[in-house]
């Protein structure tokens, strides 16, 4: 059973090389049908941070309504994951992250310098009934309060660690969640007494959570950039301009974002 395998493996590794080669030359395939001016058409893919979910759905819907024949595909994940995928050449036209650090990680995939289009603020949330009687971030020092934050590798995690330090909280969280949506759902599902999330997430949850402002404002900046692998730079650039326009800012502020 061993012998035929050993003789054939090198041959097949060689056979696979051309396959690997053709995967890497799609950088300038350039079949972009997006012309200039008003004649925009075709589809683009926008990779956006998890905290942008509702807002970008709204922005994409408005953009599609304005431009006939244009389609915006949205991909949501944690900023770090999206940045890595962009560097590894995942198909996509635009990257929007929840912090500048993730965007810098994707520097080599950017076609132009990123622009800040929104800011977001960290807040403390509790389940609607606030079972542990949380009154603010200082309550997290109470042993009866089970609280969760984002893992330090997610943008919200770094900000949360800063918030805990500012407030002098030494007690450890019960869990480090993978992104802000996971942190929020722990609180909404009443599996945690408190959590640190963005104002936009708190606002989107409506009556499911109670929101407490932090004594010191901690904000994160959201950059957006055109990617080198964009096949439809005309439409992609128009979408970025739309996000940065006053109409785009209105959607962002309505969701609780600050504008730069």
């Amino acid at each position, binding site marked *: 059973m061993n*012998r*035929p*395998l050993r*003789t*054939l493996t090198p041959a*097949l*590794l060689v056979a*696979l090389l051309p396959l690997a080669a053709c995967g890497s030359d799609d950088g300038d395939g350039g079949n972009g049908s997006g012309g200039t001016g008003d004649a925009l058409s075709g589809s683009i893919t926008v990779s956006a941070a998890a905290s942008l979910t509702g807002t970008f759905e709204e922005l994409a819907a408005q953009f599609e309504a304005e431009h006939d024949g244009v389609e915006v595909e949205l991909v949501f994940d*944690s900023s*770090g*994951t999206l940045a*890595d995928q962009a560097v590894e050449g995942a198909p996509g036209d635009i990257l929007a992250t929840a912090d500048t650090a993730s965007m810098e990680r994707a520097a080599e995939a950017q076609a132009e310098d990123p622009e800040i289009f929104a800011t977001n603020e960290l807040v403390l949330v509790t389940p609607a009934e606030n079972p542990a009687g949380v009154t603010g971030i200082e309550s997290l020092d109470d042993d009866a309060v*089970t609280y*969760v934050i984002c*893992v*330090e*590798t*997610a943008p919200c995690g770094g900000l949360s660690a800063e918030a805990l330090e500012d407030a002098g909280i030494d007690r*450890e*969280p*019960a*869990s*480090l*969640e*993978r992104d802000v949506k996971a942190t929020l759902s*722990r609180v909404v*599902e*009443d*599996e945690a007494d408190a959590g640190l999330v963005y104002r936009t997430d708190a606002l989107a949850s409506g009556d499911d959570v109670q929101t407490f402002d932090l004594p010191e404002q901690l904000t994160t900046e959201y950059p957006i950039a055109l990617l080198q692998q964009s096949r439809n730079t005309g439409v992609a650039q128009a979408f970025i301009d739309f996000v940065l326009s006053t109409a785009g800012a209105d959607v962002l502020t309505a969701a609780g974002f600050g504008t730069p």
Partner: protein
Amino acid sequence: MTVRSPLGRAPALLWVPALVAVLFLVVPLVALVLATPWSTFLDDLRTPEVRSALWLSMETSLTTVVLCVLVGTPLAWVLARVTFRGRGLVRALVTVPLVLPPVVAGVALLAALGRSGIVGEPLREATGLTLPYTTAAVVLAHTFVALPFYVISVEGALRSAGEAYDEVAAVLGATRWHTFRRVTLPLALPGVVAGGVLAWARSLGEFGATVTFAGNYPGTTQTMPSRIYAVYLAEPEAARTLAMILLLASVGVLLLLRNRWLTPGAAA
């Protein structure tokens, strides 16, 4: 290929796709070995976070195997030896977690055992105990996904060992418990061992149900796969080292089971 068969040459239509399949399975693993930063491998292993994640993974996976043996062996015996109404239904229900996406398993466990879950809420009111965010929750999540593997494996072994020896023991005056302990179980031992190793491997790699139900915190609930994922978000390089450790563990499992799976015809 190289072995001449009286049936003629193996047709290219079969062996070419077969080799593509082998490459598909092998190339990513070879790539992982090549991409692992070996120069810093040992240093990466010695960080407190990795050590605590490794230790927690060992602790929880071995506890999972013990739980599987304790409740899974009796269940496998009941399914293999006792005829009762609804046995097929029970077997089907028991194997559902086998095909369930692990994240769904985690959500289901939260619905049942979360602090506002169907069982979790009365438990909390009566005893003040909550399961999520504890090491016990990790073991429960692992057992939930690993138990079906164990039960299926042991039940298969019990069935293929057959009931003839049990009958002989009964004729010779042994009680059913005595027969189980001295005859049935020793005959099914290879299946029990294989089931245990399978359950252990499944538990070692469990991620979705664990992060969903138990959470992710170094020292209490962060097992190796959770650590890999957390590290991967920030430093994909370092994640390869951790992934390599689990790959080595998986190869170890395969070596333990080689007599069962790597020899044609030996699988139950």
